[in-house]
């Protein structure tokens, strides 16, 4: 049997002290890491300013992702719920129905749902959308511009030199903070 002086028996107080010290070190480690992270420059991602976009189709062809990481989005508060939606229908549709010959989107990525005659709600089937901006052009030319392009960050690889940004003729591509990665249109620009 070993003598108590050789290997002292742990008291409750010693155990408590050890726990407090351990927790303190744990928290200090966490705090130091977070402070270090915060002191680093803010991370940014690529995004399109929808008010600068001129629907040139480069988003569909220049992105390193296939299909492009740029997708059309539709913002309901901006939508005019046009009877003849120029983002959904061909410029001269045979009739205002869902017939493929009347639809503007070449990939059939825009889905519509009737709300109340003559109002429809539009949604984008993102896997089908290639970011060609055909619908965007139709919408901004005649409607309210509720269809517009955005870089979707669930697929964008955030290249340092974005191939679309280099090719963008209107300099619509810009770096935005990663914690606010989207640039939405709003009604304040209207009226």
């Amino acid at each position: 049997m070993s003598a108590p002086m050789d290997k002292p028996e742990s008291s409750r107080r010693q155990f408590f002290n050890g726990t407090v010290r351990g927790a303190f070190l744990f928290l200090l480690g966490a705090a130091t890491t977070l402070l270090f992270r915060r002191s680093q420059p803010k991370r940014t991602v690529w995004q399109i300013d929808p008010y600068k976009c001129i629907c040139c189709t480069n988003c569909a062809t220049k992105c390193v992702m296939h299909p492009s990481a740029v997708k059309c989005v539709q913002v309901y508060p901006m939508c005019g719920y046009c009877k003849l939606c120029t983002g959904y229908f061909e410029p001269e549709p045979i009739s205002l129905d869902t017939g493929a010959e009347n639809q503007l989107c070449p990939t059939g990525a825009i889905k519509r749902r009737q709300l109340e005659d003559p109002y429809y709600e539009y949604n984008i089937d993102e896997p089908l959308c290639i970011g060609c901006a055909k619908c965007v052009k139709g919408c901004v030319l005649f409607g309210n511009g509720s269809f517009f392009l955005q870089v979707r960050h669930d697929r964008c690889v955030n290249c340092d030199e974005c191939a679309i940004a280099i090719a963008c003729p209107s300099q619509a591509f810009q770096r935005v903070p990663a914690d606010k990665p989207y640039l939405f249109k709003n009604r304040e620009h209207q009226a």
Partner: protein
Amino acid sequence: MTQVRGDRTVGFEQHLMNKAPNSVEKSSRRQFLRRSVGGASLFGLGGASALLSFPAQAEKPAAGASSGGGRSLGKEFTYDVSKFYKTDPALIHYAESSKIATGFKELHAVATGPEDRVYAAGDQAVRVFSKTGERVSEFGLSEKPRCLAVATAGNIFVGMKNRVEVFDASGARQARWAVTGGDAVLTAVAVVEKDVFVADAGNRVVLRYDLAGKLLGRIGKKDPERHILGFIVPSPYLDLNVGADGLLWVVNPGRHRLEAYTFDGEIRNYWGEESLGLKGFCGCCNPIHFARLPDGRFVTSEKGLPRVKVYSAQGDFEGVVAGPELFPNQIENPNANATGGVCMDLAVDSAGRVLLADAFLREVRVFTRKK
């Protein structure tokens, strides 16, 4: 020495005394090392936990990434209405005869008044020009004007976002009233004898007031029993005019037609069709403005495909005042259409000249019928 460890009745000092000197553990090098390693582990563990709890948006692997160049899209991916940008010269019945530089940074509306004077509203002012384009007078406004009308007596009715202000010919304010309704966006005003009609695009209704601003009625709300379909106003354009026929004509832009109402709100007539061709009105919501010529014919303006056309009093297409060729700025800036930034307000004078407020040029463009 007796240890009293664990005895809660022992005081702190006594406890210290009891511990000393035998109870003070001597730190060995091994213990020191063990504690250092343990502390460092906990420190690191804390940091790792923080990273896991607040992850940085780490760069994703570029799965599927490749060089982007070299792809091209077929013509089916291009929105092309360019064939409508050219007008058959035989159908153009008017020529641009002069311009009035308004001097505004933003031009919002135009109207004509006594002696064929031209009234332009922009920035925060109304400027009055002679029919030959010399500036006659000017008066300031408290906020941005959106529309205006001039009574035969010379009083000027200016519509702001949600109120109407009335000025005499010298610019002194005579009256003002607010338009109730939270979403009010006034886009047109017309005055005839004892009635003032105000188009509220935000609430999709026309409001009828007396000259003092007392609300007399609401016109154009959906009412199937009275065969009124209701105004469809996708963007902030809803124009109106009172014609010599004694009817209130209002654009129903989402239905691509003009509708005639009695002052009591009964629908009496309508005309118009949707088409990108010259005979109809294009896009989602057109025409955006119209005026009546002295003989009752209609002059209309459209956005998207910017063009100004003339229709008979019965609504039959007659000809073109100005085709898209004359509005290159609008064609090159499609976003302006979507943001309500297009001003194509129209007025006509007693000689049948068509006056168009061009927001891009900030000019009133005057068109005269070709001989």
